[in-house]
């Protein structure tokens, strides 16, 4: 069942209080981030309906938003999502090779998840780290100046469950 803990509910109310009275819909994106984190890395219809109930808005208002933003997943993803930037400045510094290397290493295409459910490869558009290219986002943090060796050790860390993806 989809249900925030007491702690998280407190957090939701804190977020709602940041916006003018009656404008609790403004809390939607922040609350969806919380929900996605809490309920398996994606927003199931059940999760979205739950959030709609919390904010007292229509479910369709949540679906509209969830389908618009690239960070909100409306399909299940792997435990670790490798979001490799592929835009111009990163491309100039070899992001294509990094993406290809991950494809070969994990045996998946962009957008796919490994059979064990551990990794999803998700090409991303400019993440604001162009000077530290090539780079990827892994969970909460950026991994910059990527090389094949760095990708290898990152994937090992993920498999071992030691990769820092949250604080």
């Amino acid at each position, binding site marked *: 069942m989809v249900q925030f803990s007491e702690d998280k509910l407190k957090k939701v109310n804190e977020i709602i209080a940041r916006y003018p009275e009656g*404008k609790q819909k*403004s809390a939607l994106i922040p609350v969806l981030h919380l929900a996605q984190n809490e309920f398996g890395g994606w927003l199931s219809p059940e999760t979205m309906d739950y959030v709609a109930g919390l904010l007292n808005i229509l479910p369709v208002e949540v679906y509209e938003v969830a389908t618009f933003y690239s960070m909100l997943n409306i399909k299940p993803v792997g435990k670790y999502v490798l979001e490799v930037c592929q835009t111009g*400045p990163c491309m100039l510094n070899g992001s294509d090779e990094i993406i290809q290397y991950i494809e070969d290493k994990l045996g998946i295409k962009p957008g796919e998840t490994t059979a064990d459910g551990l990794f999803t490869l998700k090409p991303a558009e400019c*993440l*604001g780290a*162009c000077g530290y290219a090539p780079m990827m*986002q892994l969970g909460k943090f950026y991994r910059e100046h990527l090389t094949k060796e760095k990708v290898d050790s990152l994937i090992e860390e993920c498999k071992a469950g030691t990769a820092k993806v949250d*604080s």
Partner: protein
Amino acid sequence: MKLLLDKAHIEGIRYYDVWKKNGGYQSVEKALKMAPEEIVEEVKKSGLRGRGGAGFPTGLKWSFIAKPEGVPRHLVCNADESEPGTFKDRYLMEFLPHLFIEGMIISSYALGSNTSYIYIRGEYAWIPDILEQAIAEAKAAGYLGKNILGSGFDLEIYVHRGAGAYICGEETALIESLEGKRGNPRIKPPFPAVQGAWMRPTVVNNVETIATVSPIIMIGGEEYGKIGVGKSTGTKLISACGNLNKPGVYEIPFDLSVEEFIFSDDWCGGIPKGKKLKACIPGGSSVPILPANLLLKTAKGDTRLMNYESLADGGFATGTALGSGGFIVLDEDQCVVKHTYTLARFYRHESCGQCSPCREGTGWMEKILLAIEKGKGKLSDIDLLWDIQRRIEGNTICPLGDAAAWPVAAAIRHFRDEFEWHILNPDEAQTHNYGIAHYADPLEIAV
């Protein structure tokens, strides 16, 4: 001269104690003794232009904010920073959060905003913690909250995370997103200064713009206005990337030449492996790309400087724009067709889909560019691309349409020979790059 990054090297400057010890919060103390209108006046005198990309005078923008009786007003800081090549606001927020918060407090006071928001791109997921800590520290020290320093002014600042959408950097899309909706830009007017967030008067400003308000108050608007060249006053953060020995964030004086910025060891340190400079997009992906010859010198033969006027010299025919300061350098091995394709893909991905010229046009441009890049293009595709970009420009609700059109237009304008070579040598183009051949003569360019 450094006005923003002068303290960036100090160990621990991210934290309140160190910041305060190094002269922190003096600008807030000074500002709260002034009247809000006086601050707007100082910012006007400074000549500060918005650092988000459009370069609109900040003081003037502030003076437009409507003040209907009994209606709250808001300052919303644009920390969406998603224009390819741009990563300067991130640097300010990560390393100098208190400078930014000082600017937020003074700007909020000047505008009469008692609740201000920082709308930050969702991918910068670790930065809200840094900002929230800085906000909490400032509040504990009495610089935020109720009756700040006994001035009677109350202020709360909240950090609001987006969730991945370049379009939310456009100010009306940002406001929609802040209200919990899709990031569809609004039709203007009404302008945000009259009806913005929750239909209340709202000013949206870039992070760097707001941070700059602090040094302006410290040294005075007039003094600030004396720094720089002509209407490019003060200093500017440039985020340099692409093929450079020392990519990164730099605070530059406006009289610096482009050549010195790229090649001097004090700045970007030249191009790796001694390669030649081929082209550059100096102001974020939306501004025109220029070949090396037009980048370093204007069509008239003057040395090109890193400021608003000099970079724009020659208009779009032979010039470009300072934009957001996202400085992207391409060396001789880079393919302009491929680079332009990645940008076209970016804009297609980021189009909100509200207007057909942008929604359809960005998709067509991406497809045609990919075909050319993959050796499946026709010569007539070049004119087709030109035609599509021309039909997008100026025909859309928000400037994303223009931003998508300009990079393609400039690439064709200056590198048509490279596009033709790609199409005429489809096999060779898969393994080789065109390199640096001749460029269109700057004086004979058809616009």
